[in-house]
């Protein structure tokens, strides 16, 4: 093997190394100069390689040398384009993840990302909406230190969020000391009514523990949560301005859920007939059934008032499952 050939092989190896090194740098830094370096190294490598083997493939080379020289560059550019598309797709997925992780559990975010397409432009669909409110909190908060109010609310919101997200619900917003949660959006949830009512019961049960702690610090004072649950059609999607957008829902079903919450006493869950009819039979025995008048409705609404006590059996079953 003559010296010239050995030297040529070494040189070719270095050029190939240059191709790979620049390509890896470009992949990491996305800097145009590395892209240019890849193309130049590739062109040089192809030319050298083809020259080296032209004796073996003389006729084939004569016809296609120029084209062949550019084939690797073309292939690289196509590969790079595909890679760019992949990165764009990944960025899109990250955007969705970042946006929805405010509202839903990481598990639901993962499902949404896997699903690929999410309707966020505003779509009418059946939802179950849950509203909670701490009874007497505003009055009591006047007696408390601001830091104490914040700490209590943070604890309450934390546990509410955990409960809602565990049942694949979406935290829509916190309004003062109230929580608004939605089920069946953005991810479809077959038993959304059941999930919402179970969440409500778990929230009541959980709040009892917080209340016990609260009573220790504030003897004589007591807190309770009133919850309203309703099912109906509403428009759900990204609503807002260009600079501020929120994933939320609007419609009569939402207003009704809010009004039902207003009728719930501390420790009660007022469930509309629309929601109750979707629940599994005999699983949620109501403490009482009544007809109430709510603002904006001409006729009285039939509601089912549930409490932790009336649904003790179902809650125990759920605990066992966990």
């Amino acid at each position, binding site marked *: *093997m003559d010296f010239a050939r*050995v030297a040529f*092989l*070494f040189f*070719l*190896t*270095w050029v*190939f*190394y240059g*191709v*790979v*090194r620049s390509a*890896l740098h470009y992949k990491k830094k996305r800097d145009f100069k590395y892209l240019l370096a890849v193309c130049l190294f590739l062109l040089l490598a192809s030319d050298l*390689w083809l020259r*080296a*083997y032209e004796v*073996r*493939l003389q006729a*084939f080379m004569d016809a296609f040398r120029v084209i062949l020289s550019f084939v690797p560059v073309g292939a690289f550019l196509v590969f790079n384009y595909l890679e760019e598309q992949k990165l764009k797709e990944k960025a899109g997925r990250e955007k969705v993840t970042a946006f929805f992780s405010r509202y839903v559990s990481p598990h639901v975010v993962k499902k949404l990302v896997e699903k690929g397409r999410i309707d966020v432009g505003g779509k009418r669909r059946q939802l179950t909406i849950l509203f909670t409110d701490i009874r007497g909190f505003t009055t009591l908060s006047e007696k408390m230190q601001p830091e104490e109010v914040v700490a209590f609310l943070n604890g309450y919101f934390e546990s509410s969020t955990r409960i809602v997200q565990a049942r694949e619900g979406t935290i829509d917003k916190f309004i003062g000391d109230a929580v608004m949660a939605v089920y069946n959006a953005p991810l479809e949830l077959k038993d959304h009514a059941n999930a919402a009512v179970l969440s409500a019961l778990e929230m009541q049960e959980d709040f009892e523990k917080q209340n016990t702690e609260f009573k220790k610090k504030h003897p004589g004072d007591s807190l309770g949560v009133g919850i309203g649950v309703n099912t109906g059609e509403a428009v759900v999607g990204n609503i807002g301005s260009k600079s501020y957008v929120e994933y939320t829902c609007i419609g009569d079903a939402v207003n009704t859920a809010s009004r039902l919450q207003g009728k719930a006493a501390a420790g009660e869950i007022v469930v509309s007939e629309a929601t109750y009819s979707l629940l599994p039979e005999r699983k949620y025995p109501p403490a009482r059934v009544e007809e109430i008048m709510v603002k904006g409705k001409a006729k009285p609404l039939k509601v089912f008032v549930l409490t932790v006590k009336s649904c003790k059996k179902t809650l125990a079953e759920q605990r066992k499952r966990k």
Partner: protein
Amino acid sequence: MKQENLFWKAAFFSETGLQYFSENAGPKLAAACLLAAAVILSFPTDFSQASLFQAATSAVIVLIGLAAAASLSFGFAKALGGRVSFKQFFVSAVGAFATSLVLVSLPLAVIGILAFNVLLGDPRMGALLFSIVPFYNYVVFGWACEEKSGLKHSRATATGVFGASAVLAVYLALSALIA
């Protein structure tokens, strides 16, 4: 995903793949990688002139040569100020090289033989394909040396180029012996 499943990525310039070799560096893994490389590289391409003695000699040369190339590259990295353990450097370089042989060279060789020699009856294109595949192996070896050199910028690249050249030297020695 478990890291154990990702070692094959080393053949495609993935740091995750290289990490596997680095984390599991040991005499057994080093021996397995060296043996795999020796068996593949000493496998005769021309069966009409093949002999067991020649294949065994080639395998020994590859074993020694590859170990020497990795050791020399380690020495080079050390001389440039690299802070890296010999075990990790050696196993990473040899492991990446062996993986590229198993996952890239071997399948391409099979495809080349089937497509050009057997189906088209024209071995020239196969020869052209084979002529470029070893460069991929050199570059993988060099890249692994660079990544595991514990150096940065031009010194790291110099180690990579040295590694690729060292392994090319092993190939040339092997070709000279076979010729």
